[in-house]
């Protein structure tokens, strides 16, 4: 391959792909076959981190940034005046293999602008994955984008070579999508998602009977929504997210704070801040739903349509539900332990194990590594010291904030620092 041309293309097509936030490389069970290259079992690995602090796990590129669509929020939209480029199938294969051999990456994340038609594009993405698997005996991780509107036959084939498939719904509501991407329809996004979901279900049931059924997208599928581009509130966003988790068995929904890339007056203007803080709170909510046993309606509902920015969503929920506390860590069940602000699932695991040996007191809990600054107002342990005052939610919140240095305080505070 010609070095200079590949270099030029890589710069353009990596730059265009970076707004896709998924970088997960875990959850597959693809083992090394016949002394080939690569292995995608076990946990994902972040091989590096960019200066914005995001993980670099996969070679994330577009096959091309030529696109027939004109979605306002997208940097590769047809009307945008940018350099265009397209990789050949072999170039992507060579880059992937050589990066992988040097232990730079866990595998490939291949997306694309849509040229000619959905099927024409999807066919090329599949061709790359197929070549990697069949000709290079590559067993690393492959994440392919499902192109909205692609045929069922192609989606079936894609899943045979890819570990994960994803299609980004991008805008959380149908009305927002109509405004910002008038040529796209919700149904086009949903179609490949439904096909992949059904194939995965079928694969799992067949595998029970025939052990060597060929793998189908073993790391499942995911999607992404842009946050802060089309005016939705957090309640709407998480309802959509919850719907997608439940209806399409998604492994992950990603939230991507909108990075202004356009002077289009339907969107936040260039230079306005990326809503990173809000993005973080949405992820925390997502985790509470998936791992902490919360129902989304407990955190966001008609009465609370937006997440607090200054405290995390679990603390915020606890402050609204003080009647559930204090919880005794020596007797409470797992479900309630997981609801104490400041306790992560790892702390819950440690407490459940440690308390079989002795009753735990503050000293133990501190050593185990619990964030007592938040937790102390919500729990009892083997000690006669506990919060006896009947504190109001506002008072507790004040005390907690006073004793913490929130990573976001600087971005939240508009006050002048007089003595700084």
């Amino acid at each position: 391959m010609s070095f200079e041309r590949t270099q030029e293309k890589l710069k353009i097509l990596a730059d265009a792909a970076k707004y896709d936030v998924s970088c997960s490389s875990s959850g597959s069970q693809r083992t090394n076959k016949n002394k080939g290259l690569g292995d995608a079992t076990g946990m994902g690995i972040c091989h590096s981190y960019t200066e914005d602090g995001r993980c670099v796990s996969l070679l994330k590129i577009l096959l091309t940034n030529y696109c027939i669509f004109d979605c306002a929020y997208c940097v590769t939209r047809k009307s945008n005046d940018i350099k265009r480029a397209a990789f050949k199938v072999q170039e992507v294969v060579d880059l992937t293999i050589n990066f992988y051999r040097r232990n730079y990456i866990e595998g490939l994340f291949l997306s694309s602008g849509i040229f000619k038609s959905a099927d024409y594009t999807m066919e090329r993405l599949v061709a790359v994955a197929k070549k990697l698997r069949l000709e290079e005996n590559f067993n690393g991780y492959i994440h392919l984008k499902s192109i909205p509107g692609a045929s069922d036959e192609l989606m079936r084939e894609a899943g045979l070579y890819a570990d994960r498939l994803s299609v980004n719904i991008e805008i959380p509501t149908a009305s927002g999508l109509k405004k910002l991407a008038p040529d796209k329809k919700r149904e086009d996004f949903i179609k490949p998602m439904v096909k992949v979901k059904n194939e995965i279900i079928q694969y799992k049931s067949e595998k029970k009977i025939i052990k060597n059924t060929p793998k189908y997208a073993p790391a499942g599928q995911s999607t992404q929504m842009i946050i802060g581009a089309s005016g939705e509130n957090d309640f709407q966003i998480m309802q959509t997210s919850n719907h997608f988790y439940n209806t399409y068995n998604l492994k992950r929904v990603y939230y991507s704070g909108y990075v202004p890339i356009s002077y289009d007056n339907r969107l936040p203007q260039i230079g306005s801040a990326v809503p990173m803080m809000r993005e973080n709170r949405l992820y925390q909510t997502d985790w509470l739903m998936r791992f902490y046993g919360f129902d989304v309606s407990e955190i966001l509902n008609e009465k609370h349509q937006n997440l607090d920015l200054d405290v995390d969503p679990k603390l915020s929920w606890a402050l609204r539900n003080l009647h559930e506390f204090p919880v005794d860590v020596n007797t409470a069940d797992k479900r309630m332990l997981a609801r104490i602000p400041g306790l992560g699932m790892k702390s819950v695991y440690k407490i459940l194990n440690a308390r079989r040996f002795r009753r735990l007191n503050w000293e133990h809990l501190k050593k185990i590594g619990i964030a007592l600054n938040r937790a102390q107002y919500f729990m009892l342990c083997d000690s006669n010291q506990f919060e006896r005052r009947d504190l109001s939610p506002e008072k507790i919140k004040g005390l907690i904030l006073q004793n913490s240095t929130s990573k976001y305080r600087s971005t939240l505070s508009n006050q002048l620092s007089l003595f700084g």
Partner: protein
Amino acid sequence: MHNRNLIYDGTFDGFLSTVFYVFEQQLDAVTIQSESGVQHIMFSENETIVTDELKANRVWKGLNNKMSKSGHYQLYYAFLSEQAGVENLLLDYIRYVFSTDLKVDKDFSHPSVLKIVQIAKMVGREKHRMEAFVRFRLTKDAIYFASIEPDFNVLPLISKHFKRRYADQKWLIYDIKRQYGLFYDLQKVDIIAMEFPSNFDFTKTNTDYFDQQEFEFQKLWQDYFKSTNIESRKNMKLHIRHVPKRYWKYLSEKQPY
């Protein structure tokens, strides 16, 4: 009674043989030291322990029966931390394990257990980092070569990972600090010692030793690393927390362009 200072050869088997000796002799006041780091301790007599694989295996098996699998691993991980005095912490822990019928490796509020779990966690983190941060460079004799300087002795822990993953290429991972490496010859992984030319600079990719292709792929990787960054989200504090500066000199993407 005098304190006994037991000196072993620095290997894990040596350490386990020492533990065997402590239990066999029912010693109470002992310290255990590796022969490479012997410090004289006042009012104690030194005693050298001979490594005995059979005894070591008996201790290791005995521990296995009294612990969960993860607890068993944690012992070995903590040993590989090479932290000063870790042998004595391990001995305390092992004594606790053998003192009761319960499986105590998840007794997280017990000081010995907590300490070992914490050290093992640090070693585990370093292992995972090395699986991530090893950067192979293709040499002229077609070996993918990487040099590392891990805080802890993690080479024994990463061998399997790399063998499984890079089954079809020859590779060598060399620990500069401990002066030994792992070499995979397409069949098996060997532990090897190596001599390098006196002017060999581990952080540089020199045309004398490395394949021409190597320079191109390093450039492409550096380009990729830059292009995939989103400038308006820049967060160096987070970046450095994920990739601490002490690892930078062996990361291709962090080299001068």
